[in-house]
């Protein structure tokens, strides 16, 4: 039986690494992105090396009005799919966002609202399949505690993590498994301009961790693993102290 995975936000470095590794373990792929034409070379490469089928699909996360019809459209165009990997996100410019409504809304709706909308419809679709399937949502360690340097991004990713938690709770009697992924710093174009980063992980390593955690039906994955403990420490700092820290 064909296994097919839908990757939302396929142009990101993590998405490419996940896509490549899925193709190597026999998954067909639907790569969904706003401008899928740019992904044609990548899709051709994955298809040639793995022999798996790769479809490109035009998807704009912010166009939430179209989301309700997407599962059916995807199925009709590319066939059934059993795994959804939601990778899209937008780091944005925290400083700009403090006084720019458009930037605030873009960060919050890309990372949370539109993710919640599309995942809701995809969850309904997966439930009807009546076979083991799953949702992998990429949140962030930034969502574990609000910090002055990125609280628009962080709060939206935190909300996504809560949403995934609720979805997992709802779907636990079904065959749909939900994995929440909280990556630390990953070596991607998103982080290329950031300074003072430490413990930066290659996207291939993050992708490997994600797929292993999914196979083992883990619920929440910190990747690389030590971020679980770093965030444990950060969360346990009392608020009266934390509010004075420059993080």
């Amino acid at each position, binding site marked *: 039986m064909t296994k097919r995975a839908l990757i939302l936000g396929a142009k990101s470095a993590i998405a490419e690494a996940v896509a490549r590794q899925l193709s190597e373990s026999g998954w067909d792929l639907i790569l969904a992105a706003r401008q899928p034409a*740019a992904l044609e*070379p*990548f899709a*051709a*490469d994955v298809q*040639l*090396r793995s022999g798996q089928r790769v479809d490109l699909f035009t998807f704009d996360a912010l166009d939430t009005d179209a989301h309700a019809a997407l599962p059916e459209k995807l199925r009709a165009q590319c066939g059934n799919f059993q795994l959804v990997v939601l990778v899209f996100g937008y780091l944005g410019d925290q400083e700009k966002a403090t006084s720019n409504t458009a930037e605030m809304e873009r960060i919050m709706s890309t990372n949370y609202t539109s993710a919640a909308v599309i995942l809701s419809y995809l969850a309904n679709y997966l439930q009807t399949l009546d076979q083991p399937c799953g949702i992998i949502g990429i949140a962030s360690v930034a969502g574990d505690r609000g910090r002055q340097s990125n609280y628009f991004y962080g709060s939206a990713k935190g909300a996504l993590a809560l949403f995934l938690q609720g979805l997992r709770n709802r779907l636990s009697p079904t065959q749909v498994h939900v994995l929440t992924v909280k990556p630390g710093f990953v070596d991607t*174009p998103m982080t*290329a*301009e950031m300074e003072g980063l430490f413990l930066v992980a290659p996207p291939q390593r993050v992708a490997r961790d994600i797929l292993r955690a999914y196979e083992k039906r883990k619920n929440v994955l910190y990747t690389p693993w030590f971020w679980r403990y770093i965030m444990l420490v950060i969360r346990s700092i009392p608020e009266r102290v934390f509010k004075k820290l420059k993080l």
Partner: protein
Amino acid sequence: MATKEQRMTGWGLYPVFKGQIDKARYLQDLVGFARTSAPLLAQGNCRSYGDACLASHVVSTLAMSHLLDFDAEQGVLRAQAGITLAEIIRFILPHGWFMPVTPGTKYTTLGGCIAADVHGKNHHTEGSIGNFVEELEIVVADGTCLRCSRTEHPELFQATLGGMGLTGFIYAVALRLKPISSAYISVHSVKTANLGETCQVFAETQEDYIYSVAWIDCLARGKQLGRSIVMLGNHLADPTASRGLVLHSSRQRNIPFSFPEYALTPWSMKLFNALYHRRQWRRRTDSTVHYDPYFYPLDKIGHWNRIYGRHGFLQYQCAVPFANGVEVLSDLLGRITARGAGSFLAVLKTFGPQEGLLSFPIPGYTLSLDFPLRHDWLIPFLHELNQQVLRVGGRVYLAKDAILKDEDFAAMYPRLDEFKRIKRAYDPEHHFRSLQSDRLGLT
């Protein structure tokens, strides 16, 4: 698309240069960079030895390493320029295909191989890699991506083969591959006593073997000058099961740091060369060797360029015509041994005719050696060798060069003006330039 000022060198670790390195991931990135101001240069894996891959602003193509199309019947592969030969072989070999031409390392990028119009051990029989290129996609200075071939934009196509990246960004390459039924090479080795004998073996065997190379013990003097092991090879024709399409492993041993200067003394090198020569006791031997150790013996040692110390080295590769070839080579080798400046690696091959405006091969012999950068006399000495090479109508290889003078370059490459005219047509303001092209008066 990160922008950073970084230290960069070619494989010879000389010269050292600081410049801005940007990364391209998509065709659109190349278009964007081409439309910004000069100077620009595509940079692959930096396996050219001197300053051909250096510029104040380079665009790394390493993230553009995708396979685009593969015709398994006809053996035509289309791929992005940033892919390495190692990656290409990993994909094509199980389908029964191999690189039509390969240099001595599989870690060069495809784009770099086109830019230097590289040759292999089969130049005398099959020519350079340019002969196997069916089509190129090039982003030129005004930001347009041109598909070019022998019939479409033929001048741009010809100038880009061997054009050292100066005509634009090579985005994609369609390459005709070589069919094989085994990953192994059947090798016939001949031990020779001197240079005359070595050249004679080349002449006698060129009909029977597509690959040939001689490893010269360039420290042997007098009557033994040019004593070699000539290694002749063909792809194994009817393989047994265990000699099928077996891939290379990616395991490497690394040289972790630059060796101290005293590690390679003339004595230690002499010992190495003598031992290498003695490895083969009999005059003629036959063996079957996997393509990886056959074509890429040094790839097993990661960062082998560090063995010459932190000042780096110059690899000198020249080509001289067949006419009086033995005398010319004897003269060159004589000067080198008299200086005591020889190296581990002295490689002699033969070339056939070659098209291409700045392509290196001319019918004749090609000799290459490493010279550790340790003495002040080295660069003047190499200029002196250049004069000898120039005198007989020879030339040196731009992919290895770091020191050639512009007037020597102009004398060595008679089709230079033709190249310049085509470059001007596509890049009138010289957006595409390298340290080397500036030094040689190309830009």
